[in-house]
């Protein structure tokens, strides 16, 4: 295995890795969802009889669900199918299953739906043309309201020499995992079972059980290989429908989305409008004001997670003595808002970075100098009163400035160089458990997460175990168990796998090594090594074969097992600044500074990215090739959000570009060479000081490209993505 080869490379390159989309069970039926024909409507009536008349077809709707789940009391706010009201276009209103894929599609088309259309709400500017003077309390329109303030904000704005107010708009972006959502469900006397492509088997179990109203213990979720997640495969989605169909059919049912459905039904980042105001006196920020309208689609009131989180990122990693933030989670006739790799953070970084640069220019100060002066450093307080933990962003920024100066000196006219900063806090507080089993020849990590691609499970967890035990990483194997057999874990999201589940693996190893120490009569540290193909325990100058240290029962059971868990805590915010709603504390502080060199066509406004560099504080890097690969991939995804990716919603609630030709993600020739650098010396809360790296690389990208475009052509674009027409418009009126 070369330095960059991955342990899952061979199985994936043999075509032998089974993804959700590949699941095939003897006797299974093919499922299909029946989708609402309008984005908003009432008096919904669904006639399943034409579908049921087709041979071998099973069809279920709202009326069937209650009877299908014995004594089930599912979440009344989240019925699988609406009974009266449709709230987004192509909302599932019924489901069918048939012996073949084509018959399932035919059956879905045969269902007769009648619904009385209602006015459709899609556009934030139409819904909130002015910032509301009084808090709006309308659960039909507002899912959440958040508001916080510190200091005399109005006074600071009144008394400061420079005040800049701007409005920014950001687009809806999709995850675009290449594998569509897919699962196979089966319901037998033994219980409910679903095999699914998921980032969180336990999350899917909890969510599915809640929707169906069955005990979690009655449901087993088994993950498959995941063909890309990016946040889109976190919670239950198809699983409840597939289980209900399987229950009704008495046979296994496969349910998968078509790629167009993937776009139309997917839960992802929706549009936002942000009003930014900053006051400056004598080169110092005196006050900030941020007002956010975040489209959350049909997210339920009280269940919006995004607004309070997003608004923290709109203040950015900058000191401000006084601030006010207020945000509305605005309900529209779109699918519910869902997580997308660092939800809303790339958009927030674009807004705050572009805005503070404009503020600096208005105050007659070099933007980089202005930002560096206000940037958080370890020990500073965040606006919400949290103490900043080790944080390498200022160092990353210094490195980026030096490189940008060099690139700028080399850039011909028409080209420009920009820097963007981003920060993030990884979800290392979310809990997880793991078991390790040591046999005479290998160390196995038993846990519940499937690899989603980043390498955080198959490489990251193995590297943690290797580091703690002293074994070469090739001697460590990660083994997956379904939710009935695996220790609990929260899921592969929030850049938490190595940071949190890794801590559980580490704790299990520490316990295992301590038990070996007892058996060796060694009070000192014990490590493991390989000698002649066998694992030996090393203590001081002595060593013993592991085979000799196991009891016969342990040998028969496959080895010596030890368990570990990690239920972390995040920091605390100063609640005295909170006026309404929920804001979130950061667990750790992760930062990155990126540099891009671009060329802008002065006529068309089209942007070409020529080279790119990323400086990351990832704490202690546990696997350099994987870390590098995360940054390369995250930057490429960010380039899409910066330049081309925009889900376009029509006034009647239709997603107009539900395909890969019209919704354009970066192709091979559009991603430039990417330099990747890691800064040492800023340890995080993960094992050995690791910080999460799944999400941070995407965050600074749109900000970086926007800065480079301004440097190249003078265009200060306040809207994402930086599509040619938006850049050209700024060039024209500059």
């Amino acid at each position: 295995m070369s330095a960059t080869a991955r342990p899952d490379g061979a199985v994936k390159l043999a075509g032998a890795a089974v993804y959700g989309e590949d699941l095939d069970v003897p006797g299974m039926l093919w499922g299909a969802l029946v989708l609402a024909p309008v984005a908003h409507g009432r008096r919904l009536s669904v006639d399943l009889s034409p579908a049921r008349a087709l041979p071998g077809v099973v069809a279920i709707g709202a009326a069937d669900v209650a009877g299908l789940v014995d004594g089930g009391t599912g979440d009344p706010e989240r019925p699988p199918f609406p009974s009266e009201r449709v709230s987004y276009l192509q909302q599932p209103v019924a489901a069918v299953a048939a012996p073949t894929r084509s018959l399932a599609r035919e059956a879905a088309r045969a269902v007769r739906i009648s619904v009385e259309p209602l006015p459709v709400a899609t556009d934030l500017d139409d819904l909130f043309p002015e910032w509301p003077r009084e808090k709006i309390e309308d659960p039909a329109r507002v899912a959440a309201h958040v508001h916080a303030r510190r200091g005399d904000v109005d006074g600071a704005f009144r008394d400061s020499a420079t005040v800049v107010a701007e409005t920014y708009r950001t687009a809806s972006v999709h995850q675009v995992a290449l594998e569509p959502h897919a699962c196979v469900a089966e319901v037998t006397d033994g219980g409910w079972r679903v095999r699914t492509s998921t980032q969180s088997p336990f999350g899917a179990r909890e969510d599915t059980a809640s929707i169906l109203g069955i005990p979690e213990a009655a449901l087993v979720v088994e993950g498959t290989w995941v063909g890309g997640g990016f946040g889109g495969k976190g919670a239950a989605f198809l699983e409840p429908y597939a289980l209900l169909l399987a229950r009704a059919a008495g046979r296994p049912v496969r349910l998968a989305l078509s790629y167009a459905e993937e776009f139309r039904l997917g839960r992802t980042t929706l549009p936002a409008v942000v009003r930014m105001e900053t006051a400056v006196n004598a080169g110092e920020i005196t006050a900030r004001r941020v007002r956010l309208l975040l489209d959350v689609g049909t997210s339920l009131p009280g269940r919006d997670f995004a607004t309070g989180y997003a608004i923290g990122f709109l203040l950015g990693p900058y000191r401000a003595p006084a601030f006010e933030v207020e945000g509305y989670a605005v309900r529209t006739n779109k699918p519910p808002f869902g997580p997308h790799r660092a939800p809303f953070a790339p958009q927030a970084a674009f807004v705050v970075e572009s805005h503070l640069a404009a503020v600096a220019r208005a105050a007659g100060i070099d933007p980089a100098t202005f930002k560096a002066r206000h940037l958080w450093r370890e020990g500073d307080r965040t606006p919400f009163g949290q103490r900043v933990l080790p944080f390498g962003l200022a160092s990353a920024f210094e490195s980026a400035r030096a490189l940008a100066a060099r690139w700028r000196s080399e850039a011909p006219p028409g080209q420009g160089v920009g820097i963007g900063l981003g920060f993030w806090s990884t979800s290392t507080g979310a809990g997880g458990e793991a078991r390790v089993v040591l046999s005479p020849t290998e160390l196995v990590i038993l846990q519940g997460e499937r690899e989603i691609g980043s390498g955080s499970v198959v490489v990251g967890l193995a590297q943690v175990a290797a580091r703690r035990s002293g074994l070469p990483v090739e001697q460590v194997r990660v083994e997956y168990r379904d939710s009935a057999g695996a220790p609990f874990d929260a899921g592969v999201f929030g850049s938490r796998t190595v940071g949190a589940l890794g801590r559980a693996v580490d704790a299990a190893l520490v316990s295992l090594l301590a038990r070996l120490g007892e058996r060796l009569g060694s009070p000192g540290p014990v490590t493991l090594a390989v000698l002649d193909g066998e694992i030996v325990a090393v203590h001081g100058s002595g060593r013993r074969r592991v085979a000799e240290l196991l009891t016969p029962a342990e040998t028969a059971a496959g080895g010596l097992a030890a368990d570990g868990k990690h239920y972390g805590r995040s920091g605390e915010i100063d609640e005295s600044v909170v006026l309404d709603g929920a804001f979130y504390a950061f667990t750790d502080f992760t930062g990155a500074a990126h540099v891009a060199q671009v060329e802008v066509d002065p006529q068309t406004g089209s942007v070409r990215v020529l080279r790119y560099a990323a400086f990351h504080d990832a704490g202690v890097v546990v696997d350099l090739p994987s870390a590098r690969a995360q940054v390369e991939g995250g930057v490429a995804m960010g380039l899409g959000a910066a330049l081309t990716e925009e889900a376009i919603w029509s006034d009647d609630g239709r997603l107009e570009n539900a395909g890969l030709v019209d919704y354009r993600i970066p192709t091979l020739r559009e991603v430039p060479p990417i330099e990747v650098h890691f800064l040492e010396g800023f340890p995080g809360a993960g094992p050995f000081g690791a910080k999460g790296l799944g999400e941070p690389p995407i965050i600074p990208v749109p900000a970086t490209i926007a800065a480079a475009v301004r440097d190249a052509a003078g265009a200060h674009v306040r809207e994402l993505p930086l599509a040619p027409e938006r850049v050209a418009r700024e060039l024209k009126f500059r």
Partner: protein
Amino acid sequence: MSGGRLRLSVNGRPTELADVPPEERLLDTVRWRLGLKGTKEGCRTGECGACTVLRDGHAVLSCLLLARDADGAAITTIEGVRSDPVGERVRAAFESAGALQCGYCTPGFVMALTGLLREAGRSTPLDELLEDLGGNLCRCTGYSTIVRAARAAREGLP
């Protein structure tokens, strides 16, 4: 061909299929009739490249090809790529470059690159080769490692 009968050579093995409906796509034949799930279904509309296989040595999108139109052809999928010397070189280059993450686009990339290198070998300029790979989408890697693998596979050719 009559009565929906179809003759293919799949990964070197002669294969006869009956009752293949006229609308069946080669992608579904390979995945669901033959059980070769290494060929991936992504967009199903010819936009992502995940379903790429070789037909008589040339890369094709199996989602856009009617199975009956492949009658008589030799089909190579990721499961059979190792028996082709160019294919094995490409596969090995992807493995040693770590040119994959989730792995869903990977079989399509391997087949596309194998097809391109079989057509012109080392004489294809790298730039052209990369241009031609533009029809295969990857969301995980940012393509850097895939470019490294493509370069290594091309340079390793005789």
